[in-house]
């Protein structure tokens, strides 16, 4: 069952990769090995523009979403009572499940109303970035919150009792403690942004085509071997990224276990010497 499940998850992806090396224009018909679709892909200015636009948006989105999401996560985990806490927690968890068409439509209506009233923002890179930050920050907040809930508050309290100013506690204690969650949140926000088609198509303006929008307009017309080539490159980058991340995480885990063992044995020695 496990094997079948994983076959279901992975066979389509392997086929995408396989057909990207197909010389034939008709994707399911094998016409010999070729890398010509990669060459077409790299020569296309349209593709490069879309990649650059998507990366710009993804980086800005990830950075701002991590900042705002971390604040929201800290607020939820560390501040027990403030006005409107219920509404706040609702607004954090709702974007996680909100259908994209609704988010896209409602944000577009907001942007149009705003630009009528105050002449800002112009539809394009700004509006896409704002839209992405809004749903990404919810993911970051959930990650940061669950990390903080797992960490004892006593460290922060100790620092405070020893006279550290609130912002020093935040910068010297809380932020380092949630650093892994911040990295994970940044990466997740980055990927979510690169992956979004629906919300971006609602709020983007003329001339700003993100990579998913470009892929969609091509795929809409049927199977395209250069899209397969693009998919192969994306899958390759993600796989390498995930393997590296997994390796770093497991090394940290080993280090932590080692530290713990050493700490335990020292504790033991200490009790021995008392005796």
């Amino acid at each position, binding site marked *: 069952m*496990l094997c079948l499940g994983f076959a279901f998850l992975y066979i389509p992806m392997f086929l995408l990769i396989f057909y990207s090396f197909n010389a034939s224009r008709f994707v399911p018909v094998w016409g010999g090995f070729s890398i010509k679709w990669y060459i077409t892909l790299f020569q296309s200015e349209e593709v490069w523009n879309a990649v650059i636009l998507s990366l710009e948006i993804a980086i800005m989105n990830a950075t701002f979403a991590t900042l705002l999401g971390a604040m*929201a996560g800290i607020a939820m985990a560390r*501040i027990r009572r403030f006005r409107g806490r219920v509404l706040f927690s609702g607004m954090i*968890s709702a974007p996680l499940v*909100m259908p994209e068409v609704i988010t896209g439509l409602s944000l577009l209506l907001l942007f149009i109303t705003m630009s009528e009233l105050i002449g800002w923002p112009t539809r394009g890179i700004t509006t896409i970035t704002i839209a992405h930050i809004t749903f990404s920050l919810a993911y970051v907040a959930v990650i940061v919150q669950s990390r903080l809930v797992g960490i004892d508050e006593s460290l922060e309290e100790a620092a405070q009792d020893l006279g550290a100013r609130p912002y020093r506690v935040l910068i010297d204690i809380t932020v380092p403690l949630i650093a892994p969650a911040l990295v994970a949140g940044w990466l997740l926000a980055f990927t979510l942004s690169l*992956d979004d088609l629906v919300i971006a198509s*609602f709020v983007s303006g003329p001339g700003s085509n993100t990579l998913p929008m470009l892929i969609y307009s091509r*795929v809409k017309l049927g199977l395209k071997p250069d899209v397969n080539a693009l*998919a192969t490159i994306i899958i390759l980058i993600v796989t390498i990224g995930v393997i590296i991340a997994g390796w770093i995480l497991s090394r940290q885990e080993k280090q932590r276990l080692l530290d713990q063992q050493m700490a335990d044995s020292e504790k033991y020695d200490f009790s021995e010497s008392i005796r």
Partner: protein
Amino acid sequence: MLYRFRQFLESARAWQSAIVAVPYFWLLLFFLIPFFLVLKISLAEYIVASPPFSKLIQFGEEGQMYITLIFDNFVFLWEDDLYYKTYLNSLRISIISTILCLLIGYPIAYGIARSTPTVKKILLLMVILPFWTSFLLRVYAWIGLLADQGTINDLLIGLGIIDQPIKMLYTDFAVLVGIVYTYVPFMILPLFANIERLDLTVHEAAADLGAKPFTIFRTITIPLTMPGIIAGSLLVFIPATGEFVIPDLLGGGNVLMIGRVLYSEFNLNQDWPVASTVAIVLLLLLVIPMMLYQHYQAKEAEAE
């Protein structure tokens, strides 16, 4: 004065309010207010203008205020068969795919939770990996698999099992496969987290007392993993109901789903009031599952 201000900046209160206020303001402006705009426009009527909807509030010559609420769009949605059927069909497809995700996801989550620590880590990474690659491209992969001259039909014809290609692309089946394929990791992860926390001694006790494996599964494992089942099901059901990309690419014009209708009302027909009404009704349909999810999330956050 300046001293007061500095003192305020250094107080814990100021920092706490800033940490709450900034994301709060962002979410109010870009998440909550937009919904009221959608509601407002759903009560307007379509006019040929830019923007293409009538004004809700108008002022007369002597400063009187007129508020015109038009419920025509809601009546129109109620009376038009197309919308009614589309909502029902969306719900039907998302319910079936949620059940399929559960049937496929549960054994996988169970298998992962019961494997050795190293294998567990690798398998978890393998569940997460597709999630990090492009969703759109993973849906696209299924066009190649399900098309009339696609991989599956070629294989079946090549093996001599069928002589005519089976029509799979642009049917309900294709949409179901697409939804299950892209959403099954959302089912596996909460289930895995839940199954991993199970206390196995309860199972052993039941087995020692003579319970059969199926009885143990039905009366102990399922009730204990209910939180995971509910969370996973909601994470699949809610977004699947409003899904646009999958019915658009794999269902074509043959499978009516509300996300696609909303998208085309807005972008192709330019009928903003009707699109907004469609969105409001969809939101009303999903508000109970969404509140359930919110309730579950809050409980989960406190339990940790």
